[in-house]
C-alpha cells in the first residue's frame, strides 16, 4: 500500500485540474456576498441535490461505514441508516420554510424573530464549533489516507488539501464549491456502482450467495447478520441513532446549501434528489461492506495479522476495490476518496467564512450595514485562516484518536442547532432568553458528556471507567436543550419576550409563503 498507485495519482491530478479550472470560471461570476455565500441562488434543484449528496457523503460514510459493516456486520447499518434518515425530516420540517426566509446561513433564520445580536453570536459560536470539529476529523483523515494511498508525507498531504480548498473557496465561493461537490458525488456514485456490480457479478447476481460467502468466511459467522455484534445496549444504539438523525438537521454547511436555489420548489426537490442519491449510495455500501468479508478473508495476503487491511478497517473499501477491480479500480476509488475530503472541507470552509464575515462582522459588528468590499475581503481572509487552521489542527491532532472528534459535530448539531431551528420556526413561545440559555446548555452538555464518555475519558485520557457510560450523548443532551429552551421561555416576562412572540406570525407567514405574499 505504500507504493504509489499511478492510476490514483493521474486520476486525482485530473480531478484537481478540472476543479481548478472550475474555480477560475466561478471566480469571474463571484463578485458580491450573495454570489459568494449562495452562488446567487442560481443553482437548480438537481444540481443542488447532487451537491448536497457530495457534501454529505464524506470519507467517514464511504470508508468508515463499509469498514464497520466488514468488522461488525449488521450493527454497521445503525450508522448507514442514521446518516440517511435525517433527510426526510429535512424535507418535511425545514427545506421549504428555510428557503422562503431567503438569507445566507441558518443563523439568519434563527435570528429573524429573536434579538439579533445575542442569537447570532450564540448560533455563530455553535456553527464555528461544529465546523472546526468536522474540519479536524477530515484533515486528520485526509493526511492518513494520502500517506497510505499516495505515499506522500502526512504534513505535505495537509498542505495540498488546504491550498486546494483555499483556492476553490476564496476565488470561486459557493459556485466553485458546488461544482467540486457535484463532480465528486458523481465520481463517488460511479465508483461504488462499479464495485457493487463487480461484487454481484462475482456471484452471478445472487445476493444471498454473496452474503453466505461472507458469513462462512467471517470469524463471527452468522452473528454478522443479526443485531448485537458491536453493541447489545439499546440505549447506546438509540443515542447513536438520535445523534445521526437530528445532527444531520443541524449541520450548518448542509443547511447553507438550501439557500443556493431560487425558490422553495427547488429546495424541496434538492432534498429529494439528495435523499435519492444518499439512499442509493448506502444501499451499495451495505452490499460492499457485507460482501467484503467473503472476498478479503478468502485472500489472507490482503489482511494483516489483526484481520484488518493495512491502515485499519477504514481501508476495507479501497482494498476491496483492488481485489475485485485490480489497480485501475483501486486507483479510481483512492482518488475519489481524496476528492471526497476536498469537497467536504470546501463546504465547511464556506460555512465558516459565512459565520465570521456575514453573521459576526456584517450583522453583529456592523449592525447589518457592512461595507460590501470589506465583507468580501473578510470572507477571503477567513478562508485563508481556515486553511491555515486546518493544517495546524491536522498536525496537532495527528496522533490522536479522531473517532471522538468525528462524533462530536453531530451531537452538537443535534443539541444546539436543531432545537434552535425547530423552535424558532414552529413554536411561538420561544424567546431570545430561552433560545440563548437552551443553546448554551446544549453546547456545554454535548461537549462535556462526550469528554467524560468512553471515547475520550477512557480511550484518550486513559481513565479506567467513564463518568458517563454512552458515546454520542445526544439522547440526553438534545431533550435537555429543548427542555431548557421551553422552561426559560415560558418563565420569561421581559419586554423583549413580547417582541419575540409577536414576531412569530410574520416569520411564519414569510417562511410559508415567501416575501411577496407575506408582505402583501
Amino acid at each position, binding site marked *: 500500500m505504500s507504493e504509489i498507485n499511478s492510476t490514483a495519482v493521474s486520476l486525482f491530478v485530473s480531478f484537481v485540474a478540472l476543479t481548478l479550472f472550475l474555480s477560475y470560471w466561478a471566480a469571474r461570476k463571484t463578485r458580491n456576498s450573495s454570489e459568494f455565500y449562495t452562488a446567487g441562488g442560481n443553482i437548480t434543484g438537481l444540481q443542488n441535490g447532487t451537491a448536497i449528496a457530495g457534501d454529505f457523503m464524506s470519507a467517514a460514510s464511504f470508508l468508515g461505514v463499509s469498514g464497520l459493516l466488514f468488522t461488525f456486520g449488521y450493527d454497521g447499518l445503525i450508522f448507514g441508516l442514521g446518516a440517511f434518515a435525517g433527510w426526510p425530516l429535512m424535507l*418535511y420540517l425545514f427545506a421549504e420554510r428555510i428557503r422562503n426566509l431567503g438569507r445566507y446561513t441558518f443563523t439568519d433564520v434563527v435570528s429573524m424573530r429573536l434579538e439579533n445580536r445575542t442569537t447570532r453570536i450564540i448560533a455563530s459560536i455553535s456553527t464555528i464549533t461544529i465546523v472546526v470539529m468536522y474540519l479536524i476529523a477530515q484533515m486528520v483523515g485526509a493526511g492518513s489516507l494520502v500517506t497510505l494511498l499516495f505515499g506522500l508525507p502526512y504534513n505535505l498531504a495537509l498542505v495540498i488539501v488546504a491550498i486546494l480548498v483555499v483556492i476553490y473557496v476564496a476565488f470561486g465561493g459557493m459556485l466553485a464549491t458546488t461544482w467540486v461537490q457535484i463532480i465528486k458525488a458523481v465520481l463517488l456514485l460511479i465508483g461504488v456502482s462499479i464495485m457493487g456490480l463487480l461484487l454481484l457479478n462475482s456471484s452471478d447476481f445472487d445476493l444471498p450467495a454473496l452474503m453466505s460467502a461472507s458469513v462462512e468466511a467471517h470469524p463471527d459467522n452468522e452473528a454478522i447478520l443479526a443485531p448485537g455484534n458491536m453493541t447489545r445496549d439499546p440505549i447506546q444504539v438509540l443515542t447513536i441513532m438520535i445523534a445521526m438523525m437530528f445532527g444531520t438537521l443541524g449541520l450548518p454547511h448542509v443547511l447553507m446549501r438550501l439557500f443556493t436555489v431560487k425558490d422553495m420548489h427547488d429546495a424541496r426537490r434538492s432534498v429529494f434528489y439528495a435523499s435519492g442519491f444518499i439512499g442509493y449510495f448506502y444501499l451499495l455500501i451495505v452490499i460492499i461492506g*457485507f460482501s467484503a468479508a467473503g472476498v478479503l478473508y478468502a485472500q489472507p495476503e490482503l489482511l494483516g495479522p489483526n484481520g484488518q487491511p493495512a491502515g485499519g478497517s477504514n481501508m476495507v473499501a479501497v482494498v476491496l476495490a483492488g481485489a475485485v477491480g485490480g489497480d485501475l479500480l483501486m486507483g479510481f476509488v483512492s482518488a475519489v476518496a481524496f476528492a471526497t475530503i476536498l469537497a467536504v472541507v470546501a463546504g465547511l470552509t464556506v460555512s465558516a467564512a459565512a459565520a465570521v464575515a456575514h453573521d459576526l462582522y456584517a450583522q453583529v459588528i456592523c449592525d447589518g450595514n457592512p461595507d460590501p468590499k470589506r465583507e468580501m475581503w473578510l470572507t477571503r481572509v477567513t478562508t485563508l485562516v481556515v486553511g491555515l487552521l486546518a493544517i495546524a489542527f491536522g498536525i496537532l491532532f495527528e496522533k490522536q484518536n479522531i473517532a471522538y472528534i468525528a462524533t462530536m459535530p453531530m451531537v452538537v448539531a443535534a443539541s444546539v442547532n436543531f432545537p434552535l431551528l425547530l423552535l424558532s420556526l414552529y413554536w411561538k413561545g420561544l424567546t431570545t432568553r430561552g433560545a440563548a440559555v437552551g443553546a448554551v446548555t446544549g453546547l456545554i452538555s454535548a461537549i462535556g458528556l462526550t469528554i467524560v464518555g468512553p471515547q475520550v475519558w477512557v480511550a484518550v485520557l486513559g481513565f479506567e471507567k467513564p463518568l458517563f457510560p454512552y458515546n454520542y450523548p445526544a439522547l440526553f443532551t438534545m431533550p435537555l436543550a429543548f427542555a431548557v429552551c421551553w422552561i426559560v421561555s415560558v418563565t420569561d416576562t421581559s419586554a423583549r419576550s413580547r417582541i419575540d412572540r409577536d414576531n412569530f406570525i410574520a416569520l411564519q407567514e414569510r417562511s410559508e409563503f415567501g416575501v411577496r405574499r407575506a408582505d402583501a
Partner: protein
Amino acid sequence: MTDHAETIARRNRRRFFYALLTFAAYLVFAAQYLPVMSFMGEAIAGFEPVTYAIGWFCFLIVLFVTLEWRFIRTREGEDEHV
C-alpha cells in the same frame, strides 16, 4: 382563523405527520436491540437471515423515499392551485 393561518396549520399537521411516521419507522429499527423485542428476529424466521439483514435496511430506505415523493407531490399539487 384567516386563510393563511388555516393553510399554515394544515401544512404543519401534514409535516409533523410525515416526520413522526418516519421517526416511528426509524425507532422500530432501534427496537430490535431491546431484549423484550428479541422476538422480532424470530417472528420473521420465515426469511433467510440474509434477507432479514438486508431487507430491513432496504425496506426503510424505500419507505422513506416513497414518503418523501408523496409529500412533494402533495405540496406541488397545492402550489399549482395557488
